[in-house]
């Protein structure tokens, strides 16, 4: 399950389909986004150095879904709904639904959110830096392309690898590559 904060980052990179198409180890992965998440993630920053850099550009989810890199999950069972409502007492709605569906369906979850990670239990978890590193290492993405993607994520989604993240040094080195 792909949560809102990571979906935003991959869409900002300009290489969302490529990043999500890379297998994790030997496993081909299908990424799913909850309907609630799609309704929360609606726009990206234009970016660039111009006066309009802060302008928001709408995300065309239909186009994203059409690429096949992400599928939409619009329904939940009664048990999943119950779990979602209970989790919503701790985290926001998008995170709550993502966790509820992941736990119920034995999916992994892609999230950078530290509070959400506290409620995952045994649900396997990766974050934005992990998938970008995977794209770099397992798809052989060249350094200039990786640098472009990371700079776009920082510019259009205002995201950077957290200070304490194990891949922070890798991220900074990759940013500097041209």
């Amino acid at each position: 399950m792909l949560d809102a904060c990571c979906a935003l980052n991959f869409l900002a990179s300009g290489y969302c389909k490529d990043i999500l198409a890379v297998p994790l180890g030997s496993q081909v992965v299908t990424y799913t986004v909850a309907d609630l998440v799609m309704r929360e993630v609606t726009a990206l920053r234009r970016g660039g150095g111009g006066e309009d850099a802060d302008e928001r550009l709408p995300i065309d989810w239909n186009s994203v879904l059409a690429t096949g890199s992400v599928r939409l999950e619009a329904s939940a069972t009664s048990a999943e709904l119950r779990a979602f409502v209970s989790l919503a007492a701790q985290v926001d709605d998008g995170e709550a639904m993502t966790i509820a569906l992941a736990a119920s369906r034995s999916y992994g979850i892609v999230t950078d959110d530290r509070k959400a990670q506290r409620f995952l239990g045994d649900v396997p978890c990766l974050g934005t830096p992990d998938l970008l590193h995977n794209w770099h290492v397992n798809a052989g993405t060249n350094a200039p392309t990786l640098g472009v993607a990371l700079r776009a994520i920082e510019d259009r989604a205002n995201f950077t690898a957290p200070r304490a993240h194990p891949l922070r040094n890798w991220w900074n080195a990759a940013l500097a590559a041209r």
Partner: protein
Amino acid sequence: MQIEPLNPKILGQRLQIERKARGLTQQQLANLLRVARTTIVAVEKGERTLQPEEIARLAQAWEISISDLVRERPAVEPLAPQLRAAAPSSGLSKNDVVGVNQTAETLRQLGENYLELESLVGRPMTQNYPPPYSLDAMPPLEAAGDIAVRDRRRLDLGNAPLPHLRAVLENDVGLRIFLLPMPSRLAGMFAFDVRLGGLIALNASHPVERRLWTLAHEYYHFLCDRYRADVYVLPGVSPRRTSESERMADIFAAHFLMPTAGLKRRFYELKAARVDGVMPGDLLHLKRQYGVSFQALTLRLEELKLVRSGTWNMLNKSGFREREAEAMAGLPPRDESEPRLPQRYLELAVEAYDRIELTEGQLAKMLGCDVIEARRMVRELSREWVVSDEGTTGNLEIPLDLPLAEMAEA
């Protein structure tokens, strides 16, 4: 994965608050959910809980998140009743009345957020509230000026201009001040809540000088009639009869923002520098110092007999336009931007996020922006600007969660 079941008492309390905020009866809510009224009674008492499908349906009907319905957080009683009672009984358009109700509800929600943040971080607001000022034996309109002098003394403000009055009232008094969208005739509102203390809302679309005046006006109501709400309505084209309380609030604002001794001294300094007497351009510079409108300054100078009575009327009728005059005088455009939310609120929100008490989505909601903007604010509020010995500026990212004693020396 262990998921805690919902706490029926928390849900029940929240349901009641949200129902009352929307002016609904228990029967009306029961109809909305297609349940019996007795069910709503039991839910609000915490004796039973709603089904997840019912909670989801309610959140959709009320256009709020499920998290807002089920999350444990401090509850603030609706402010709309006290603010509606404070609004003038006539002269308000339907749009204005809607504006009062909407602002009241927004203020309540922001107040709840503020309390929640203080609870998460463990830092309640320090209040430096004086006992309400009494008018003593002075004529009311003179008392207003006297209270201004006394409160400046209490806060050790001297006679200087107060363009940063908001920061003083938030940090040194402990008021909660927000800039909110309102119909243009509404300048501001004041309300008091037992848990929150004094709350002030200013019209975000008004010019900065008007907002400063409104702030001082509402501060008067806090100082002198704390438990009665106020809605400050501009007189409009046909001024209605203003209550004595509102007139006193405006007199207080004039004296508090432009204290007599300091204003006289600055005026005479200007006069001494001019052979032919003080000019309108000089007054533009003076009004910039005080952060008030040209009209407010000129009327105050008339009151102090420093300029001829009728000076403002004369200038106004001759087509004086404040912003054009400022541009002609070479004054840079006034910075109209001001944070919608109190600085302390922003800092508490970022700290709560850094302490992993909020998700990114919850933080964005608290800040009233999208996640991208929330990330920018976290970065900004986590940084300290430094200036090197060579004079170049840069930023030093400081970890908010590391005790000072543990920070390594550079």
